[in-house]
């Protein structure tokens, strides 16, 4: 009897050992998540769903936006079909729980990359490359003649209460020793309404959001973003920490989009580029990048042509940016920090080697 109980206690251990054994003798990639996505035939992707330019539902019922296109690129890379994504709208308080419980495979929801979210002792998440470098900014009417944060000393500033935005503003104003009157509001709508009524001379929020809101103002050209950036908000897709194989697949898919822009490969010319690579054995870099030779895909547990599939689906990083939030959209955001490193920005893909 006693022996039986001991055996029962050991049983989970034996099972665990057996699982470890299985995991190690495959040799290739044994990512539970990646295999799960492949066997399901569908990627479960968490998005905000209500953020201009990043994720929203179009009148025809399809999801659109920058965050959404990241999901589609990953689906195209893993499953060969950008339409095999199921989107979940998540709010900011439930997003990490949904990821941890496995309800979603990938969180692409304008999430700021921070230490406490990354650390195992914190949220224990695994961050992919940043797809949008945002930062807190300040907007003021052109007519007010305000050119920098210093000019705001002694003036009222509209801010949403209970946000990090409010705290960042207080910190920065203290640093430059400027007093100001914060006018706090519960919701974004109230904040901008007060700003438009002239109850404050400036309003602060993430720069992308300020620019998005500005397009809905009666006179968009009459408002300027001040040059100061009050905080760093690198918005980054996220996966769980426990599955490095899956995190790698997501990471290199996104790097693939960035590298494609650097190499001048676009949605329009990708087929020509593949043909060119196939015809010319001397272009080893291009051939490896597009999966014509080498085994980059296999090393990640992805098809050899995963970059080709991703670029075909959503275009390279630059196209994706311009279409959703840049000059091709109503938001008309500048590339700014989101330019390629070769143009002085922060978008930098490590080498595909």
């Amino acid at each position, binding site marked *: 009897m006693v022996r039986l109980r001991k055996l029962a206690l050991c049983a989970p251990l034996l099972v665990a050992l057996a699982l470890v054994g299985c995991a190690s003798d495959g040799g290739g990639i044994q990512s539970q998540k990646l295999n799960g996505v492949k066997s399901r035939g569908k990627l479960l992707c968490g998005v905000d769903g*209500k*953020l201009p330019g990043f*994720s929203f*539902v179009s009148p025809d019922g399809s999801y659109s936006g920058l965050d959404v296109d990241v999901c589609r690129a990953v689906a195209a890379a893993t499953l060969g079909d950008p339409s095999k994504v199921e989107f979940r709208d998540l*709010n900011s308080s439930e997003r990490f729980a949904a990821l941890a419980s496995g309800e979603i495979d990938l969180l692409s929801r304008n999430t700021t990359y921070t230490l406490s979210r990354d650390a195992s002792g914190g949220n224990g998440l695994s961050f992919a490359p940043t797809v949008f470098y945002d930062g807190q900014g300040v907007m003021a009417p052109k007519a007010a003649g305000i050119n920098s944060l210093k000019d705001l000393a002694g003036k009222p500033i509209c801010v949403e209460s209970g946000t990090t935005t409010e705290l960042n503003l207080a910190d920065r104003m203290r640093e430059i020793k400027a007093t100001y009157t914060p006018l706090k509001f519960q919701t974004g709508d109230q904040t901008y309404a007060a700003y438009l009524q002239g109850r404050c001379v400036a309003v602060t929020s993430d720069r992308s959001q300020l620019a998005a809101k500005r397009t809905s103002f009666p006179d968009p050209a009459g408002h300027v973003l001040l040059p100061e950036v009050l905080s760093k908000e690198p918005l980054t897709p996220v996966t769980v920490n426990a599955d490095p194989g899956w995190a790698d697949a997501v990471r290199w898919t996104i790097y693939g989009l960035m590298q494609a822009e650097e190499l001048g490969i676009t949605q329009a010319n990708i087929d020509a580029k593949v043909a060119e690579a196939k015809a010319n054995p001397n272009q080893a870099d291009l051939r490896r990048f597009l999966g014509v030779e080498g085994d980059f895909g296999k090393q990640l547990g992805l098809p050899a042509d995963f970059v080709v599939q991703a670029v075909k689906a959503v275009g390279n990083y630059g196209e994706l940016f311009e279409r959703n939030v840049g000059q091709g959209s109503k938001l008309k955001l500048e590339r700014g920090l989101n330019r390629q490193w070769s143009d002085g920005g922060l978008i930098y893909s490590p080498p595909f080697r």
Partner: protein
Amino acid sequence: MTVPSLTFSRLRRELFATPVDSVITLALLGFLLAVGTAFLRWVLFQAQWAVIQANTTLFAVGRYPIEQQWRLWLLTGLLAAASGLCWGLLRGRGTWPRNDQLAAGILIALAVIGSWALKLELPIQLRWWGITALLLMVRWAAGRWSQALPAPLLRLVPLVWPVLYLVGMVLISGGLGLMRVPPGEWGGLLLTLLEASFAILLCFPLGILLALGRRSELPLLRWGSVVYIEFIRGAPLITLLFLGQNILGFLLPGGLAPDRVWRAAWVLTFFAAAYVAEAVRSGLVALPPGQLEAARSLGLPMHQALIHVVLPQALRVALPATVGQFITLLQDTTLLSLIGLLDLLGTARTVMANPEFLGKNAEVYLVLAVLFWCCCAALGLGSRALETRLNPLATSKA
């Protein structure tokens, strides 16, 4: 009691009795007129309704696949036919009282003006006209020939609704040879009405059981009901919704947990049941204990005494409070947008995030308010009609 009719002389007597009265009346009239014209000017000239016109499908059914939407049209048609049938049978004798003429007029106006104002495509406009015509024709036919139908058949008519509900569920979700449409793709008004009707239908019997349990003499049952009711009433709905969404995912392994839409529906049901239980209990308390004692002394077993004597009277008393709870429940479905479901409000928020329609919040929220008002008004009207019908004095008069 007779309500004095509204005549010009009476208006004059009451509103312009003294100079002070006249000034107040004129000031209020002027204020109302100013607000009214400003509002009308905004609605007619300033508001940009393209945001609604472009997204009608999204507001109505969310991301329901386009090639499967015929199922929803079929369901709407069936609902219209059933409504017409019951309407006609309730009136009987083929008459059209003034209220009915008014209702028919409003329905026709809605179908014609509504679909024109929303700039619906012609085939969709035609479908709305067809559905309205179907409703009115069935109403006419049922009223015309209600006398000719055999009585046993007439008794079966109320069964149309539960059967239609089940048919509707199959049509919406698929199965039985139809392509499955996962709940994640339901949205808009469809999802709002579905969640609300599901919760309303289930919370009512659950609430009655809880109310009876709370007055039971078995301690375990009584305390169980008390703890449940007080726990639910002590927690805000939004926290329970979050619990339902987040905890279930951890407790049950992936795939076993019911879909998010159903999780929310069950949470709404369990939440509303506690409040309905208290409404029903108020009806039970209002009933003199002699009713139950008399029924028991006649030799009725407990359950029969409850079903045939106590509950019919208690529920009639509790009806207004219960319907109030249902209306609240319908409005509470807007909280689903906070847990990421694309109900009517969730759809509205995602539409407003479309860079094409940024800043069109006022238009969207106004349409939402009108839609919710219509749904709640329908519930309220139905409940008042039911009250008159259940009123023992009124039925004896008829």
